C-alpha cells in the first residue's frame, strides 16, 4: 500500500491529447505524499477493484478529483468509480465513517470561458449552478468541501495562465501536506 496522504483521482479519457490536465497530474505525481492515481490507465475496461480503491481512499486525508469537465459532469470512468466505490455503509448511510472528516478538492478544467456560464449565454447557467452534484457527493460522505481549483477556457489558455494554474495547484497540495487546511 502506497504511503500517501493525498489521493488524486485523475480521469482523462485521452491523456495523449491533454495539455493542462496532464501537467497538473505530473505536478501532483512529483509531490511526496501525493498518490496520483490514473484511472483510465488503471481500469481501461471499467472493471474497478473496489476493495483496493476503498483502501486507497481510507488512507488519504484529502481526496482530489482531477479531470476535464465533460457534459457538465465528470468523465464516465470517474463516475463509474463513484458508483462502484462509494458504497452504502462504507461511504454514506448508517455506520459509514470511512471518508468522514477528509477533505475534498475538485480540480477541473472547462473548455469554455467563464463568461459562457451565465443566463442567456452558451451554457445557460452560472458555473456554480453545475457544482451541487459534486458538492453534495462530498457532503453525503462527510467530507469537507474545499474551494474548487478551476481553469476556465482551457482551449484558449496561454502558457502563462497554464503555468500559473499548475503552480497554484502544486502549492495548494503542498500547503495541505504542511497541515495548512485553509491554504489548500
Amino acid at each position: 500500500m502506497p504511503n500517501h496522504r493525498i489521493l488524486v483521482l485523475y480521469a482523462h479519457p485521452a491523456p495523449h491529447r491533454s495539455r493542462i490536465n496532464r501537467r497538473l497530474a505530473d505536478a501532483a505525481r512529483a509531490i511526496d505524499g501525493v498518490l496520483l492515481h490514473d484511472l483510465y490507465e488503471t481500469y481501461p475496461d471499467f472493471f474497478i477493484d473496489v476493495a483496493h480503491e476503498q483502501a486507497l481512499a481510507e488512507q488519504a486525508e484529502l481526496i482530489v478529483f482531477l479531470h476535464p469537465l465533460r457534459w457538465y459532469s465528470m468523465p464516465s470512468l470517474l463516475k463509474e468509480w463513484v458508483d462502484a466505490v462509494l458504497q452504502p455503509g462504507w461511504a454514506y448511510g448508517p455506520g459509514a465513517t470511512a471518508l468522514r472528516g477528509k477533505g475534498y478538492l475538485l480540480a477541473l478544467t472547462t473548455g469554455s470561458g467563464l463568461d459562457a456560464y451565465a443566463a442567456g449565454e452558451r451554457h445557460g447557467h452560472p458555473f456554480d449552478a453545475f457544482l451541487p452534484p459534486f458538492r453534495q457527493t462530498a457532503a453525503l460522505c462527510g467530507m469537507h468541501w474545499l474551494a474548487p481549483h478551476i481553469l476556465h477556457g482551457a482551449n484558449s489558455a496561454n502558457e502563462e495562465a497554464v503555468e500559473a494554474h499548475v503552480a497554484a495547484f502544486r502549492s495548494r497540495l503542498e500547503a495541505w501536506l504542511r497541515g495548512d487546511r485553509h491554504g489548500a
Partner: protein
Amino acid sequence: MEHSLLTNALIYLAAAVVAVPLAKRLGLGAVLGYLLAGMAIGPWGLKLIGDVETILHFSEFGVVLLLFLIGLELEPSRLWSLRRQIFGWGTAQVLLVAAALFGAALLVGVDWRVALIAALGLSLSSTAIALATLGERNLMGTPAGQAGFALLLFQDIAAIPMIALVPVLGVAVADSAHAGGWQNAARLAAVIAGVVIGGRYLVRPALRIIAKAGMREIFTAFALLLVIAISLLMQWVGMSMALGAFMAGVLLADSEYRHALETDLEPFKGLLLGLFFIAVGMSVDFGVFLAKPMIILGLVLGFLAIKLTVLFLLSFRFGIARGQRWLFAILLSQGGEFAFVVFGAAATARVFAPETGSLLVAVVALSMVSTPLLLLFHDKVLEPRYRGQNKREPDAIDDNEGHVIIAGFGRFGQIIGRLLNANRIKLTILDHDPDQIELLRRFGFKVFYGDATRIDLLTAAGAAKARALVLAIDDIDDSLALADAVREHFPDLPILARARNVTHMYQLMDRGVTIVERETFESALQLGRRALSQLGFGAYRAREAMLKFREHNKNSVDAVYPYYKDREQYVSMAKRARDELNAMFARDLKNIDNETDQGWD
C-alpha cells in the same frame, strides 16, 4: 426344412420389418406388432420356425439388456430413495394378487398346490412388455411409471424364492443337486460382493483403457461381454439374470461412460427385445387353445379381471393420479416371463400335469397379447373420459433440466465450462478423450465419453431439455456434422459455436448458426492491445483502438460473407482465403484515423 442361422435371421427380421411398422400405422403399438409377427411365423402360423423354446430362451437376453440399461439410468442414491416402493408396494402387490387368484382357484375347486403355484406365477408381470410400453409412451417419470417400475423390480427378486418353493410342493424330484441352502446363500453373497467391488474398481479402469484404444467396436464388445458375464454369474448362483444385470447397471450409473454404454447397447436391446416378443407370439399354443377354447378364454378373462381389480385398488394406495390408475393396472395385468419358468419348474417337479402346464402357459401368452389391446381400449375409451377433468400433470423434473451441453472439452471448451460452472449453470460435457474426462471428473464435472456428433448420444445426454449447446469441437468436419445434426433433430436448441477460421465461421453461418466466435480472434486482439500499450499508447487509448479495429473487422467479415457464398463454386479454398485477406487489409487502411481534434482541456 433345415434352417441355418442366416435364414432364421432373415425370417425374424423380415417379419419384424413388415409387422411392426404396420402395427404402429394401425395404432396397435410396436409390442403387439412383434407378437403378431411371432404368431404369423410360428408353429401355428406359417410354420417357418420350429424351435420356439430355444429362441425364447436366447431372446430373454433382451430383457437382461433392458434391465441393465434401466440400471444405468438409476443412480444408487435414487434406488435407495425408492426402497419403500420396491419392498413395501412390491410385497403388497405380489401377496394380494396371489391371494386373490389363489382364493378364486380354490373356489372353483382346483387342487391347492396347483392353485398356489399358478397364483404365485401369475402374480408376476412381464417386465419386457410393461417397461417397453412405459418407454414407448415416455411414462417412466410419472407416478404410475415409477410405481410400475418399483413393482417389476420387486417381482424380479420375488421370483427367486418362488422358483425355489416349487420343488418343495412337488413329489420330491432327486434332491441331490441342491446341497445345503446356506452354501447357496454364501455363494450368492460372495458373487454380489464381487460384482459390487469389481464394478467399482475393475470395470471402470477397464472401460477407460478400452475407450482410450479408440476402437468403437471393441468398446461395444466389452459392454456386451460385461452384461453377459454378469448375467451368467448371477444365473450360476441362482439369481435372476435380469436382476444381476440391473445391479451392474446401477453400479455404473454414475460412471462417465454411461451415455456411451447406453448408445452402444441400445440397438441390441431393441432387437433382442423384439425377438423376445416374437418368441412369445410363436409360443402361443393354438393347439391347446383350439382343444379347450372356452376354458382358456374363461381363464384368461377371469385372471385379467382379478389382477386388474387388485391392481386398480392398489393404485389408490400408491398415490397414482385418477387419470392413470387404469393405465397402471393394465400395464401390469399380464402374466410374465417368470411364469413360464415357474410353470416349467412345476411341471418338472410334477406339481401338476403337463397339460395343466401348457394350459397355464397359454393363459400367460394370451394375457401378454391382451396388454397392447387393453392399452388401445384405454387410449380410445377410458382416457378421453378423464381428459376433461384431469389437469395435465407437471412434467417430471429431470436432473438435467435446464442444463447446457458443451461438446468438445479441450482447451477451448474448458474455459467456457469453467466460466458457466462458476456461475452455477448446470453442465453436461461430451468429449472423446478419456484422459481429459478422468481429469475433469476428479474436479467434479459431469463429463461423458462419446462421439458428440452421434445424435443418439446427444439424445441420451438430454439435448431435448438443454438450454443451449456450446459447440467447441476442434475438428471442423465434426463441428459441421454436429451443427447439421442438431439443426435437424433439435431445431429449437440454440447453438453457440467455436470457429477455427473465417471459412469455418461462414460454413457455420450457412447452417444457421448465428452465435459464432473465431477461436483466435479475441485473444489476438487482446495481445495486440497490449502491444499498443507497450509502444506508449495509454491503456484506455489502446483499448479504444482495439475495439475500433475489432468492430471494423467484424463488419468486414460480414461484408465478405455473401461474396464467399457466390464464389464458393469455383474459387479454390486457398485462393478465396487470400482474396479475403487482401480485401481485409485494404479495408483496414481505409479505416481508422477519424479522430477529431476537438476540445480536450
